């Protein structure tokens, strides 16, 4: 059971990554090319996923949409990772008041619906890919902070930390050079799950029209646009949905697989 999760996850992600890299150089049709005559044509050999209300090829748009999904997901997770680990490490290691305050803030952020926070952020600093990434990044900080803090609390008591202290290593050195390498696996697991959440949040925001703006293609926005024509062109709504699910599924499987491995160690 342990291995299957990782393999399924890896297979899905490799497929999507391949599609994404291909889409950078080649898509069956230019992504923005409109062709009014071919409006709403159903899936066919010519247009694998059919065309949308401007006659644009949905497959090409979905393929290039994957670029945004990966791009936003990766950067958002990166932000969440860097700040989350930093906060988690410091509060886990130092503890005391600092820990108390940061954890209170983290709990409050977790209690607050993520989308709401992103909405506020985007409304304040304006829509667009830059702000979407920052918003989702900040939203994922608490989960990283929590995971890191708990592993730091645990590792703080281990021998190798005491011996490092004995050698007179400064707290910063201990945090980054001694403990960090030992706590990477829970962080990796939470970054895969974080990636899945980031993709879902980006899709959500774009669906509300507040996420990624044209000309960047986005699955969430495609879903929003497709909803109007669902009764005459249902395929328009199905294609982007499937790919969001696939990407998130891939990361969930990967995350679970890693988690099983890690619990085995």
């Amino acid at each position, binding site marked *: 059971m342990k291995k299957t999760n990782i393999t399924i996850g890896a297979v899905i992600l490799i497929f999507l990554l391949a599609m994404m890299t291909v889409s950078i150089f080649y898509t069956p049709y230019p992504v923005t090319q409109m062709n009014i005559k071919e409006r709403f044509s159903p899936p066919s050999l010519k247009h694998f996923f059919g065309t949308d209300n401007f006659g644009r090829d949905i497959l090409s748009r979905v393929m290039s949409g994957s670029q945004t999904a990966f791009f936003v997901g990766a950067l958002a997770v990166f932000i969440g990772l860097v700040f989350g680990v930093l906060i988690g490490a410091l509060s886990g290691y130092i503890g005391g008041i600092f820990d108390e305050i940061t954890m*209170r803030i983290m709990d409050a952020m977790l209690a607050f619906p993520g989308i709401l926070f992103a909405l506020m952020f985007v409304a304040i600093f304006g829509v667009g890919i830059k702000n979407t990434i920052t918003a989702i990044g900040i939203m994922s900080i608490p989960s990283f902070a929590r995971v890191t803090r708990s592993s730091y609390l645990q590792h703080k008591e281990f021998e190798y930390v005491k011996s490092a202290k004995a050698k007179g290593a400064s707290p910063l050195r201990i945090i980054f050079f001694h403990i960090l390498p030992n706590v990477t696996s829970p962080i990796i697991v939470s970054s895969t799950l974080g990636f899945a959440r980031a993709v879902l949040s980006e899709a959500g925001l774009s669906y509300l029209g507040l996420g990624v703006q044209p000309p960047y293609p986005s699955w969430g926005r495609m879903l929003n646009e497709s909803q109007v024509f669902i009764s005459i062109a249902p395929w328009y709504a199905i294609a982007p949905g499937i790919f969001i699910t696939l990407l998130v599924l891939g990361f969930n499987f990967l995350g679970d697989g890693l988690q099983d491995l890690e619990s085995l160690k």
Partner: protein
Amino acid sequence: MYFYLKKGFSMLITIIAVTVITFVSFQIIPGDPVLSRLGVDADQAQIDALKEELNLNKPLATRYFIWLKGVFTGDMGQSFRYSVPVSDLILNRISVTFILALISLLLIIFIGVPLGIISARYNNRIPGLFISFISQIGMAVPSFWTGILLMFLFGIVLKWFAVSGYVSWSENPLLCIKSLTLPAVSIAIPNIATVIRYMKNMVLDEMKKEYVKTAYSKGLSTSQVLSKHILKNAIIPVITILGMISATILGGSIIIEQVFSLPGIGRLLINAITTRDLPLVQGIIVYISVMIVIINFIIDIFYTIIDPRIRFN
């Protein structure tokens, strides 16, 4: 008791912090509430009159304290967009979000928990594997996509459910629930998956415990052991994540209200943000935070009901 005070107090600070941030940020962001209300043909005299009415000319700090004083006296000030007390606006919209959240919470509990137990009982066997696979997919599917598909399938094709529009509880409770079923299901699905996974792991942990052996030694059958002993013990950790889930339900409902165009808090907030209706945005934040505090409070009470150990310390 001290425990609740501390938790409530920290939530209070966060609410105030969030509202201060919103207040300040609303000053610096582009977009003018007066213009977005009056539109293109607004006459300069009308603009000045409205600015006066909404006392936008007063300095920032005084406006914040007027608002804060108002919050504690229950008067959240007037919405810029509707010139109607913010609390009236929110109160008649909050019922939608609240009932929606309630239905999806019930769905989550009454579908997630049993399925979780079944998947634990038949772990590594056909039913167990099937349920975990489905829950894996359930977690991955974006809730608004499920919403669109459900609306298409049940609304347009099968015409079982009304496609949009909301019947308020006071008009007709049954129809109200009917109009909220599809949205509630789409919010519930990803959370049901989470509950299934949590429940399964918790039940498996409890099965290893000693008191289960004692129960078996009394001659109880597996299902009796599950329902009489394991369920109650396994549900405690699940209740804690229900607190977290209630936050995602509120978040989820913001998007789902858009899919099914339900007049809930979510859409009210989005419109409020786009029309820079500061008092309304502040009001909604306070209401949502209060709702979260209440939900967490209820969950803590649930905790003490089920787990006597907590009642004493």
